[in-house]
C-alpha cells in the first residue's frame, strides 16, 4: 500500500546532492498510507458507536449496547484488530501532523519533530496495547 507516498517519499533521496543516504522517509510514508486506510475504514464507525450509539437511549437500551460493545472488545481477535487499527491510525495522524507543522514554518525542525510525533504515536500505541490487554 503506497498510496500518497510518491511525492513525499522521493524528495529526500533525489535532492540530497552528495551522499545518497536513505532518510527513512519512505518507511514513514508506508506507515502513513496503511494508517490512512485503517483510519478511513474504521474511525467514522468508532465515533458513531462510542460518541452517539452508546450514550443514547434509555437505561435498558444503553445496557444492551454496552454489553454488545464489551463482548466485541473482549474477544481477542477483535483486540488484535483494534490494536492494529489504533496503532496504524495514530502513525498516520502523527505523520500528517508532523508535515502540517513543517508546512506552517517548522520545516527546519523536520528531524527534531520525528521524536515527539512518531515517539508519541508509539507511546500511545503502547498504552492502547496495555489497555486492551486488561479488558
Amino acid at each position, binding site marked *: *500500500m*503506497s*498510496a*500518497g507516498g510518491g511525492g513525499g517519499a522521493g*524528495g*529526500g533521496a533525489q*535532492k540530497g*546532492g*552528495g551522499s545518497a543516504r536513505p*532518510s527513512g522517509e519512505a518507511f514513514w510514508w508506508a506507515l502513513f*498510507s496503511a494508517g490512512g*486506510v485503517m*483510519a*478511513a*475504514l*474504521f*474511525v*467514522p*464507525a*468508532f*465515533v*458513531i*458507536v*462510542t*460518541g*452517539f*450509539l*452508546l*450514550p*443514547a437511549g434509555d437505561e435498558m437500551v*444503553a*445496557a444492551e*449496547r*454496552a454489553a*454488545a460493545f*464489551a463482548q*466485541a*472488545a473482549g474477544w481477542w481477535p477483535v483486540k488484535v484488530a*483494534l490494536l492494529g487499527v*489504533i496503532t496504524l*491510525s*495514530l502513525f*498516520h*495522524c*502523527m505523520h*500528517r*501532523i508532523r508535515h*502540517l507543522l513543517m*508546512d*506552517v*514554518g517548522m*520545516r527546519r525542525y*523536520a528531524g527534531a519533530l520525528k521524536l515527539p510525533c512518531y515517539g508519541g504515536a508509539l507511546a*500511545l500505541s503502547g*498504552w*492502547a496495547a496495555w*489497555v*486492551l490487554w*486488561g*479488558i
Partner: protein
Amino acid sequence: MSGQYHRPHRWAWWTERPGYMRFMIRELTSVFMAGYLVVFVMTLARLGAGEAAFGEWIAAMGSPGWMAAHVVALAAAVWHAVTFFGAVPQAMPVFLGEKRLSGPVSQIVMGYGPWLTVSAVIVWWVLR
C-alpha cells in the same frame, strides 16, 4: 534533509487560495482524529475498569460538550475517509489485466464500498 531549498513563505500561506484551504482542512482532520483516538483508548480503559466505571464514562459522553466534540470528530473522520478514498485513482490505480478501472469505479471498489460495509457491520453489531 539538508540541501533542499524551500521558497520562503508566510506561515499562513494556505489562506491565499481555496485549494490551499481545502488542503489545510484535510491535513487538520488528522489532529481531530488523533484526539478522538486518545478518547477511544480512554473508553476502552474504562471498559477494562469494570461495568460501573464504563457506565459512568458513557453517561458523561452524553453531555452536550462531549456530543459537540464527537460531531467534530465524526466530521473530521468522514472527511478524511472521503478525501483518502477520493485519491485512490491517483494513488492506487486498479488494473483488470491491461484495462485500467475508471476513477469512480476504482474509488467504490477500493474505498467507499469497503468503508460502508465495515461501518454497517460495526453499527449493526452494537444495535442488533
